[in-house]
């Protein structure tokens, strides 16, 4: 399988090409990055075809075999995450070609973007925790730089807060990796799981009460929750979102926070350390807290980007709640919600960015002006809001309904009530923001010059709206079996991962 390492290498090659060739000619940088991402999507299609036959593929770098060497592993979950990543980042790139047109150092932006792509691919494909950590750091550092790319005061402030929290989380994760390596003498995810199973069978260790395992789990949980921005650790999220350019914020909320936080959490807790009921309930509590607090704080915000970032915390809380419930249906709902969050949040941020582009302001009192002259942006914003609130034809409805159903079946009936209350709060806050745009302002359309956003930005929003309408199709049986079920199966069956990988 030549394609698997190339998923990481191609964006890196693009980075070097841009640094070497396109420093003076910035249109070339955009063309190189578009070409790189198209090539990646083609390679991803090949990987998808190969995975449909064999279930999982192990790529041994340099020919070093499984527990010792560095391995890249593609399985159902990795393919699922990569699908979201490449779809959203392709759209972000289209959007940013129009959005970053007049910015100062474009080649720096594209370089960091491709570096981020390469890091995210590496995180998803990594087969051992240290490789995962290295790619996590690559993508995290690229995203710190991307947040501060405009070099304004607020952007630097937000990026500094983000970097501070990111560094703390990296130290915690590295400590967890070091302790687990000292304890089990192995780094490969499948091998750790196997060794723990052997020790558990031999009876010299009870998995649920072993103090080392509990300590490692808590370190990883804290570290990755910091990367996601779940509620006790959510302080960096709003400042980082508030001043970054719109395509960066799209990437940050739709990809970086889920892929750097939730995906490694899933891999480590479900495939490596082994999940316990206590951890599940901890994740559930964190999810509920971030849902409620995100929704409550979003009520009082007046700046659209800050408002959307609180909303993003609340949405990611849904995903973590779905994982925390822990049944098969709930995890499927969480995965579906990951897709729907990626689509709806990038749609909302794209529309906010279009207003930004037109107005260079995103205060609530100025919305009406852009809404009147930009019908497409208005439509995109409304559809994104409807999707987040959970109105039936749009994507948010399906995922939230599945999570509510799963919570009801699993017996967490209080959670259903909380979800409904949070949805009502979301509806109130979105209504507040949208009505500010629609009702207020008695000036006519002719009072303003036509402020149309460029074609690529409009195209990006149209594609996202289409996917927002039709992503409920993913729950139909054929699409679900191809895309969603392998990932869910990998998570919900405890030892299938290590057996699948090690005895290939």
């Amino acid at each position: 399988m030549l394609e698997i390492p190339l998923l990481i290498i191609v964006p890196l090659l693009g980075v070097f090409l841009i640094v070497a060739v396109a420093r003076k000619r910035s249109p070339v940088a955009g063309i190189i990055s578009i070409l790189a991402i198209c090539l990646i999507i083609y390679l991803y299609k090949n990987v998808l075809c190969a995975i449909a036959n064999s279930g999982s593929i192990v790529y041994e770098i340099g020919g070093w075999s499984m527990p010792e060497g560095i391995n890249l592993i593609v399985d159902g979950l990795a393919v699922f995450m990569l699908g979201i990543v490449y779809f959203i980042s392709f759209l972000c790139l289209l959007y940013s070609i129009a959005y970053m047109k007049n910015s100062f150092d474009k080649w720096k932006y594209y370089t960091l973007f491709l570096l981020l792509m390469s890091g995210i691919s590496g995180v998803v494909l990594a087969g051992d925790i240290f490789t995962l950590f290295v790619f996590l750091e690559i993508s995290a550092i690229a995203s710190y730089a991307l947040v501060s790319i405009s070099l304004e005061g607020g952007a630097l402030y937000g990026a500094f807060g983000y970097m501070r929290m990111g560094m703390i989380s990296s130290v915690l994760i590295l400590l967890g990796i070091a302790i687990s390596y000292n304890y089990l003498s192995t780094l490969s995810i499948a091998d750790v799981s196997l060794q723990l199973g052997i020790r558990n069978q031999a009876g010299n260790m009870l998995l649920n009460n072993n103090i080392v395992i509990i300590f490692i789990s808590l370190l990883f949980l804290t570290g990755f929750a910091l990367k996601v921005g779940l509620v006790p650790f959510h302080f960096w999220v709003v400042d980082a979102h508030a001043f970054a350019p719109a395509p960066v914020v799209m990437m940050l909320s739709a990809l970086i926070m889920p892929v750097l936080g939730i995906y490694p959490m899933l891999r480590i807790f479900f495939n490596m350390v082994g999940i316990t009921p206590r951890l599940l309930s901890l994740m559930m509590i964190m999810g509920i807290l971030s849902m409620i607090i995100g929704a409550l704080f979003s009520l009082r915000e007046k700046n659209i980007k800050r408002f959307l970032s609180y909303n993003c915390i609340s949405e990611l809380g849904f995903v973590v709640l779905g994982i925390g419930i822990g049944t098969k249906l709930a995890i499927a709902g969480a995965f579906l919600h990951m897709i729907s969050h990626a689509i709806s949040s990038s749609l909302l941020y794209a529309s906010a960015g279009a207003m930004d582009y037109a107005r260079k302001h995103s205060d609530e009192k100025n919305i009406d002006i852009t809404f009147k002259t930009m019908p497409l942006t208005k439509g995109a914003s409304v559809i994104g809001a409807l999707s987040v609130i959970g109105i039936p034809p749009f994507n948010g409805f399906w995922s939230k309904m599945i999570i509510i159903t799963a919570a009801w079946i699993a017996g967490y009936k209080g959670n259903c009530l909380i979800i409904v209350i949070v949805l009502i709060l979301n509806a109130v806050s979105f209504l507040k923001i949208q009505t500010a745009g629609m009702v207020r302002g008695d000036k006519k359309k002719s009072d303003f010059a036509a402020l149309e956003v460029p074609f690529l930005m409009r195209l990006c929003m149209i594609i996202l709206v289409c996917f927002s309408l039709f992503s409920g199709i993913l729950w139909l049986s054929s699409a679900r079996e191809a895309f969603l079920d392998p990932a869910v199966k990998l998570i919900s069956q405890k030892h299938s991962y290590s057996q699948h990988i090690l005895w290939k």
Partner: protein
Amino acid sequence: MSVEKRQYYFDQSKGMGIIVKTVTRLTVGIVFLFGINVALKGHLVPGGGVAGGGAIALALLSLILAFGKETALKNINRKRITMIATLGMMMFLFLGLIGLIGGNLFSTHFMDNEGKFGILKANIIPLFNIAICLLVGSGVYTIFITLIMLQVRKGSDK
């Protein structure tokens, strides 16, 4: 010593005193060679690309400290050092990509194990070490240059 160099050497306003300058002039080459040595012997003894690159970067930094930033930046400027870093990265990547030729895996050891030169007995690992050495040396130096330049800009604003 040429006239220009002599000027830098005895100019008290740039850099540190003449004792430090003399000592730095004598030791910089040794530290540099030590860095190269550590990087090239990385596959045999403890050390390797990162340690060697760090030593090389420290040698360059001691030049900045002793002779002042203008003198050092005139000789090794930021553009040149960025190109060296890119070269190191490219070298690493292409060494990995050569392994793909002939249907092998990424970063396969593509050379014969019985190399004629002693340094190549560990196959491509010494070459990887050289690439990492270039990358780390120029990278650490770039970080310090960036910090210095920021300070200069801040000072000029005041």
